[in-house]
């Protein structure tokens, strides 16, 4: 166990020392990784912010339930009862046709329109708010309500929410694709860097082998190198991401003010930072593992 720790700590120190000695190239590598990693990061922050914005507006999706004309009061109270008992409905409000008529009269535009009408053409209606927030669930509820007797039309007020969600979904997919492509590029970049390092140390590797080094011993420093490149890269990516967002938020705030909105890009949470760094480390490890495996153990 002690021996194992010794070997690891030695490989670790060796690599840190090597990176310190070649700090310009280490820095370069960290920047390359940082820039690459922060691209999907930025996209994520934008989509995430829009998502929250959509969440706020959508807040309470509404379903308007227009009843058939000329309904018995009994049917209306039956619908009321069913709405009260329905587990998916948060609250509802009954708008009688007289009330709607009055409201319309108060509205200037409406009053002009109504002047040409002789009688009230409006139906009784319920305005209700479902507990579910997702478009799918709301839609399901809407379809159910549509089937109720006495209901002429159940209308979800904002189908644009659905469209927005679809667009955001697209954004999420774009992040995935971008992240996957860039991950591949990073693995290739790190792999190549590690391969070059291996080439400069072939002599040491050969001698180590001859005097009894295990494959793990030979692989270890290179794996640590990959992990550290990942760590530095992840940290740089995080820095870039935070600075870019802080910078942009000034302009975003100005624009949002013009639309009298409080919209801001959210600073990424520490969880996102953690994900960024952990994935950078994993990519670094993977890249160097592939490189070591290819250049050391395939030539035999």
């Amino acid at each position, binding site marked *: 166990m002690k021996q194992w720790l010794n070997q690891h700590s030695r490989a670790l120190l060796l690599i840190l020392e090597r990176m310190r000695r070649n700090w310009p190239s280490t820095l370069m590598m960290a920047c390359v990784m940082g820039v690459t990693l922060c691209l999907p990061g930025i996209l994520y922050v934008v989509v995430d912010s829009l998502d929250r914005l959509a969440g706020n507006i959508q807040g309470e999706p509404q379903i308007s339930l227009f009843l058939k004309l000329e309904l018995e009061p009994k049917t209306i109270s039956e619908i009321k009862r069913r709405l009260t008992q329905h587990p998916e409905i948060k609250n509802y409000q009954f708008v009688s046709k007289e009330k709607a008529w009055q409201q319309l009269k108060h509205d200037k535009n409406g009053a002009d329109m109504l002047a040409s009408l002789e009688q009230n053409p409006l139906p009784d209606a319920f305005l209700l708010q479902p507990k579910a927030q997702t478009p799918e669930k709301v839609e399901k509820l809407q379809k159910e309500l549509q089937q109720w007797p006495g209901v002429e039309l159940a209308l979800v007020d904002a189908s644009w929410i659905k469209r927005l969600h679809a667009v955001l979904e697209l954004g999420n997919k774009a992040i995935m694709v971008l992240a996957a492509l860039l991950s591949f590029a990073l693995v290739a970049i790190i792999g190549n860097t590690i391969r070059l390092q291996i080439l400069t140390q072939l002599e040491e590797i050969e001698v180590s082998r001859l005097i009894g080094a*295990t494959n793990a*011993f030979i692989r270890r420093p290179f794996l640590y190198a990959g992990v550290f490149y990942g760590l530095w890269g992840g940290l740089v990516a995080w820095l870039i991401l935070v600075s870019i967002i802080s910078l942009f938020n000034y302009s975003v705030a100005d624009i949002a003010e013009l639309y009298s909105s409080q919209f801001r890009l959210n600073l990424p949470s520490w969880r996102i930072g953690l994900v960024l760094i952990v994935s950078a480390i994993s990519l670094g490890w993977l890249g160097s593992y592939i490189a070591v495996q290819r250049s050391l153990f395939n030539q035999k």
Partner: protein
Amino acid sequence: MIRFDQVSKRYPGSDEILRKVSFIIAPGERVFVTGHSGAGKSTLLKLMAAIERPTSGTVLIGNQNTSQLRPAAVPFLRRKFGLIFQDHKLLYDRNCFDNVALPLYINGVVGANAAKRIRAALDKVGLLNKEKAMPITLSGGEQQRLAIARAVVNRPAILIADEPTGNLDENYAAEIMALFQAFQQVGVTVIIATHSVLDAAASRCKRLKLDHGQLICEMPESDQTKADTDITPELPA
């Protein structure tokens, strides 16, 4: 104990380098492998250290058959040996101390304990004052001694040297041979391949003479005690 039983070795596309070679080396023996260049001396040593595997026959190191060793077990077999190569195989990007440290690091020995053993090994070969020097600044004889320090720092049971005096003048060669004798006296099995004319001390040791891959004579150890009085060995470990 090292035991070769009907060992043949052929590289792809070559004649047989070794043909049905059989011998036994007991623990603590000092053995010279002689023969013209190309006789198969280096190959013989490589077979011992499991750097190569025999085409046929068996090589037993202790009780392990090298041909049946799993690849993962080979490094652990090699740690029983101290290997000294004809071309030293020193690492020129680090100083003497770090060169000798490599086998210890491979074994997971670091820190003060390692430093102590490294200095002891350097001291034994007379290079203690050069621990910070880069190998490239050393003379040929010093480089060879540094290689020996690296081979013995792990206190191996078997020391294998391939042409250790090949490029050295007589004085240096005698120094190096005296070192090997000192190691043998503390119980290390020493196996030396050489094509040079053997000196007086060596002529009394066991000799394996190779000719075109065949073991043509195996001279047993003769009057060892008398021989040892001729050369004053360096301090044993």
